[in-house]
């Protein structure tokens, strides 16, 4: 199997401008990485097919790695050669070489569903699409990714949410749901069609809900994510300078990357707060709340509603870590009876590359998850 030689860009070097395009480190690497070396990834999700683990992350056609042991990874073919053509009809400015963000991989009834997002930095003209496959094993004759098109889109000026960062799951009653969102008015939960390829439209069954949000000043322009970083807006015209500065430095509305994990009668909603994508200057962190119903309300350890800014920190010791500055955009899986937090973390040194971390979760006696970094 050949490893693709992919040209990649780093987040750092672009000053204060957020860059949420490809954030992989250079992956011109030998077929098997040394055991101590962690692969570069952004926004990781995982699945197991047979004896092999697969991890998916942000990348031009969605980046894929495989492993037999969750430590040594080798590069797999990307899901797509490039972004599907229909995306440019919905988002006219989306580039032919644009990267697909924050995938989710979900196995249901013999089929793998790969959800992906396409967007533009600082704007919420975005789409979530889905592709299906019978297997993740690229050597299998049944291996073929089929793009199934759009699941949902967000429109600037219409929607106070951003259609990226999808996560799909079924509730305890077997109904399918998708959580998603980034900045703006927070994270959404929406009932999917039973075929998992679109949002439920029947007025008798459809359901939408905001499940997590952070303070957002009501006077902000609807096209502002909350960080005053939309390149299409003239902030000198929109706001007084101190307001623009405050937005750029504050954590107003900075929440994204939902992931719902069921355990012990609860739905745990994980989310990421604050700033990704700034290398060693990132402030990204994972928080959690829980609910007995999938539609919420999700309350944190202090009974604060995640829709009102609540959230309990999961990885609590980034400030003690010498190796890692920040990290987030997690998923959670159970392997061999143990639960793992799968996420990316930014190195505290060098170029602040984002790397894959898989850490065992400690559940305390109140049922709250924590992860402690060891380096």
């Amino acid at each position, binding site marked *: 199997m050949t490893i693709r030689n992919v040209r990649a860009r780093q987040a750092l070097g672009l000053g204060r401008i957020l860059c949420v395009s490809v954030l992989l480190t250079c992956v011109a690497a030998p077929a098997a990485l040394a055991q101590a070396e962690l692969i570069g990834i952004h926004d990781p999700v995982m699945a197991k097919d047979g004896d092999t683990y697969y991890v998916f992350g942000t990348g031009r056609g969605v980046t894929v790695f495989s492993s037999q042991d969750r430590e040594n990874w080798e590069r797999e073919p990307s899901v797509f050669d490039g972004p599907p053509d229909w995306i440019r009809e*919905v988002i*006219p400015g989306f580039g032919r070489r644009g990267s697909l963000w924050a995938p989710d991989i979900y196995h249901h009834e013999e089929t793998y569903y790969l959800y992906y997002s396409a967007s533009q930095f600082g704007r919420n003209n975005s789409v979530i699409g889905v592709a299906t496959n019978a297997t993740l094993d690229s050597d299998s004759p049944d291996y073929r990714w089929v793009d199934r098109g759009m699941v949902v889109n967000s*429109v*600037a*000026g*219409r*929607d*106070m949410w951003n259609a990226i960062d999808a996560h799909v799951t079924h509730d305890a009653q077997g109904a399918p749901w998708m959580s998603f969102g980034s900045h703006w*008015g927070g994270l*959404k939960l*929406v009932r999917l069609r039973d075929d998992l390829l679109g949002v439920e439209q029947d*007025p*008798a069954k*459809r*359901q*939408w*809900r*905001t499940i997590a*949000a952070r*303070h*957002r000043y*009501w*006077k902000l*322009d*609807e096209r502002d994510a909350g960080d005053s970083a939309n390149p299409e807006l003239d902030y000198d015209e929109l706001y007084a300078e101190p307001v623009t500065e405050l937005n750029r430095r504050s954590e107003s509305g900075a929440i994204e990357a939902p992931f719902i994990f069921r355990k012990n009668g609860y739905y745990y909603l994980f989310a990421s707060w604050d700033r990704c994508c700034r290398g060693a200057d990132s402030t990204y962190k994972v928080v959690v709340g829980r609910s007995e119903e999938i539609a919420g309300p999700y309350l944190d350890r202090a009974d604060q509603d995640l*829709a*009102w800014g609540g959230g309990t920190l999961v990885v609590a010791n980034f400030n003690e870590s010498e190796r890692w500055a920040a990290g987030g955009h997690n998923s959670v899986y159970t392997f061999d009876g143990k639960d793992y937090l799968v996420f990316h973390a930014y190195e505290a040194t060098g170029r602040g590359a984002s790397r894959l971390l898989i850490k065992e979760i400690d559940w305390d006696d109140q049922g709250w998850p924590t992860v402690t970094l060891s380096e």
Partner: protein
Amino acid sequence: MLVAATLAVHAGGASAQGVGGRDPSLILQDGQWHMYCTGPGVQEFVSDDGTEYRAIGSVFDDAPEWLATALPPTAGQAPRSEGGSPDTQAGGAVHIWSPHVARHDGTYYLFYSVSSPGGNESAIGVATNKTLKRDDDDYQWTHHGPIVTSIPGRDMYNAVDPCLAFDDDGAPMLVFGSFWSGVKQVRLHEDLTRVSRPEQWRTLARRHRYWKLDEAYAGDWMNGAVEGPFVYGKDGRRYLFATWKVSDRGRDRCAIVVGRSDDVRGPYRDRIGRDMRVGGGSNVVGGAADWPSVGHCCVFTAGGRDMLAFHAIRNSVDNGNDQRAELIVRPIEWDASGWPTVSLE
């Protein structure tokens, strides 16, 4: 020929027409005035002189077909002030809110909304006709829709109170909204029956709303109470009229406000330059002793005079909780700076 002075006649304490109704929209066809109001199947009134109106009943006998797949069966309730409840089925003719009538390229368009009180599960549709005169051979309404739908938990707007506007190149816009995040504008397809693609949206007016309020909650006098938009073009400008709910000595009442812009897309600013998207709006008519609460206006021109039609609610001590609205028509006074006011005296 309609004389403006006739419409201005108003005996103290009584509306010019003595007509009960809400959310009026007016148009003239062949010397006859047609006024459409909220009510079962849209309530219609006609007048030959603009002063004496007679009720001629519902425009639509049946619910529009698109309603069955767009909204749940509980949609089509009357507003709460007229006994509507969000929990019961809408029996008989569907109660239709805030009609807006317009004529464009030889066709009459009647925009309307269907909703339930207190929630934003709503939709806006439009019906077309070649004539408004029920005796004409080609009188036949055709429904189109939904044009826009609002879903609780998805949308921070309410798809009610539609109004049509055009930019200087003739591109059509639908302006609508009530509470939540305020008044929205979306570009329409040139056939006026659907939104254009790719979709072009913006907010035109908004008032403070506490960010922690549940998305199912519409708002109140101190949270986002703006609705009933109407865009009027005059002297190269666009005026955005809207209705606010305000609190006055402990009692909620409505008032009509305005802002203006050189572009139909806004920003609309009031007399002191405040953008209507951050709470701006200057008083047009704010109620008087007999009618402390006024709202939901439209503007039309009769005999060369601009007129404001709106409803008023008495809310007097005698009437107690009587929320029945009455229709009022008054001339608009434009001051030297081009700002409109209306007197209820």
